[in-house]
């Protein structure tokens, strides 16, 4: 059986920002769907947990919201990345890469020896 890991608020926020960057403006359901897909189903996200996270990002000014119409003519609230959000996403992504790189060095030598 595949492992379904819990998602931290911070990483969830980063995933939201990244999703909005690659997909452009999207509504809450769409973002949740896309995150699940991108993680290759390794993440089990209750869709409901997304909304408080979206609110937080909006309050901090990284995304903005507006009511619009979906492809199927349904009314929905769309979220869009702001300039500050783009910058934040880039800096957060950089930090994650650095962290992973450092950890990789720690884990690798042990592997080599064995």
């Amino acid at each position, binding site marked *: 059986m595949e492992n379904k890991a819990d998602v931290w608020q911070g990483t969830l926020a980063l995933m939201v920002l990244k999703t909005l960057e690659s997909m452009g403006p999207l509504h809450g*359901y769409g973002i949740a769907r896309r995150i699940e897909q991108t993680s290759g189903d390794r993440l089990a996200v209750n869709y409901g947990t997304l*909304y408080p996270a979206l609110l*937080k990002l909006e309050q*901090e000014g990284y995304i903005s919201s507006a009511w619009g119409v979906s492809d199927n003519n349904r009314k929905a609230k769309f979220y869009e990345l702001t300039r500050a959000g783009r910058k934040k996403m880039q800096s957060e992504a950089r930090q994650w890469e650095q962290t992973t790189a450092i950890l990789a060095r720690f884990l690798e030598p042990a592997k080599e020896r064995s």
Partner: protein
Amino acid sequence: MRLLRAWLIRFGGLFSRQRRERELNDEIESHFALHIEDNIRAGMSLAEARRAAILKFGGVEAAKESYRDRRSVPFLEILGQDLRYAMRTLRKNPGFAAVAIATLALGIGANTAMFSVVQAVLLRPLPYPQPDRLVEITETNPLKRWTHNVVAPANYADWRRMNTVFRDIAAYAGVDDKRASIFDFFLTGSGDPQRLRSILVTGNLFDVLGAAPLTGRVFTDQETFGGHERVAVLSYGLWQTQFAGDPHVIGRKLLLSGKTYDVVGVMPRDFVFPGRDVQIYLPLGVQPAFFVQMRRPHMLNVIGRLKPSVSLDEARAQMSAIARRLEQTYPATNTKMGVRLDGFHTALTTESRPALLMLLAAVALLLLIVCSNVANLQLGRAAAREREMGIRRALGAGRFRLVRQLLTESTVIALAGGALGLILAMAARAALLRLAPAAIPGFAELRIDRWVILFNGLITLCAPLLFGIGPAIAASRPDTLRDRSESDSHRHRVVRDLLVICEVALSVVLVAGAGLLVRSLILLDRVDPGFRPENAIGFHLRFPQTRYPDDDHCIAAIQSIENRLRAMPHVHAAGATSSLPFQGQIYTGDATVEGSTGDYERELRHDLITPEYFHAVGTPLLGGRSFNEFDTAKSPSVTVVNEALARTYFHGADPIGRRIRFGRPSDHDPWTTIVGVVADAKQDGLDVAVQPEAWTAITQQANNEINFVLRGDGDTAVLAVEARHSVREFDKDLVLTAVAPLTDLLHDAASDQRFRTTLLTGFAGIALFLAALGVYGVLAYSVAQRTKEIGVRIALGAGLPRLFGMVLRDGLRPVAAGAVLGLAGAWLATGMIRSLLFGLVPADPVTYAFTVVILSVAAACACAIPAVKAIRVDPVVSLREQ
């Protein structure tokens, strides 16, 4: 920055909740719509699609709650909810709310008022720059039993010259031992002479204080001395009342008691030295030789400002060394003359400190009683609210949430009580200033300033913690929703009884303390003053040197005035003396009593009187004679003494015929023969032992100021008016001052004791009332709970008296426990107020017995009402009740 933005938006989320709630619902609806659509497209049926979407979403309500928590500030929202709920609850229970708020207002208000007094007297720094550098210097002398005496001018001058620890030292004169101004100058020139309270100061006094004038200037060093002293500095109050705040008052000339003075300065509004009553500051105006030569008469109050780096102990050491050098240089006058240094603020407050601290402690106990009472009230309601709490718990409220809401309720009550209490404190201040202004020392200004308000706020916020937490925790205890047929929670009863025990104990301590003070006052009142104060008045006259240049003029004037007074209708006797009793001004001198062993007396009270003085003031002559018209300047010197002197020096033998020599042995004054003995009359206070005293006739030694005593059989007010007339007829420019019935002198002497006794009795009364209320509350509640049981008892034939007794005993049990605890506590606590008592030990059995009686009566009354209710229970009605 982002955080700040987020928080600001969250605060905004406190408003327009409905709109945002609608938007959230819309968003979630649209989410489900989109998901269900997708599911249907993937092939599920409508029902499956919906179910899958709901499952995938997770808990909708939980998500909404999370969202709402982030949308606004939950803390504030909950607070808002709790406040609204608390207001609703209190409005539905106006009786409880009124009693709780009133009780708290009383307790918090009393504390705030008491704190405002303590703030004014003990805490607030004096209104001068760096007031902690100011030091009062007094003289001590074990030979004369002086512990902090006024200073001889020559000593002052030497201290000033020889010290290196003070920036400067200044001196002032004209105040009594309470630092109230006793020097009156009369502003003449426009209508009736206006009496002005003044003090005489050295030119550098304002410099030492560091006080700058509002306008004009203060004195210079040179102006201490005669020839330069016709300058005056006005107080702000005088400037406003007498000169209507005239901006050109500087340079105006004033006619003060016959001399012309120039106004050179006005002090600012908040300047006060040494007391609020001083209206005008005048230079000492003495000859320079005064300061160098006068080493025997002591009359100056001295205040100094320490140099910045010098400590009080260092200064004490150096001044003591200086005093010792002076002792060696001037053995005739300075033997054993030491110095004493006290911080100025400390010196001003030593007398009032013990009583103030006692009252503060008492009022704190009162607050504890108040909080106990309110806690008891809340516990009483807790049982009634069990159902409400049960429902809320069942709906998912956590314990903390319930406690929080109950505490908010308590805080609302406390805030209302605190605000009302602040108003009470303001009213108390106004009342105090009007009814007992002398109770506050002269330098202190009673104000509700920001510290007092802060204190009020502090106890208002702490009170709910005291009386609210217990009941809140008790009320939110996890319990099932059950039928309330037997809800007299045993636990609650125990706690409520404990609270009653505490209340009773604390109030017993207060009642015992008040009882001790009241008994002290009664014992004080019973003391025989040694003279008869009823139907007599006294007044003071000063003969200005310009019109009465020497002793003979003064003597003639005094005798003439006395004759006129005696000739008035309704007057029985008229006499004069240099010191009236209880006035705080005493004349003492050296004396040698013939035949006494040991060193000569250095501090014998010695006053000057006219022959009829003893008759006028009502002090009986025990042997020999008083002075008569044959005692003149040329006849042999005679003296009259009091019993104390006879006892001290002649040990009961007849003093008549024995001799005293006034002055030091080296002065070789003539011997004076004792011709009469009078009974002991109290001199400084009813609680102070009578000192040996001797009197000389004014014809043999005179003074230019004198006090008259007039005894009549009519209204003392009438006597006063007629006396003024008589004196005016003699010399229209003489002004009578300090005109008062002798009973006032007696009354004022005990005013401090009376004030603190009244206050403490008030607190004790309130405390007892609240404790009785608490006893009543618990018992009434218990009886109401036990109605069915009582009904059964009555139905089964229980005798009503026996039932009454049972209920009464039930109510009195905690009272008895509390009384025992309280008496023990009182025994411990009252030991601390020993110094405030007169004629009693703190463990006075009569007072304690009285306390027990009062408590019993109060408790019995409190318990009687519920007991009466109990025996009036109709068993038919109560048994039918479910």
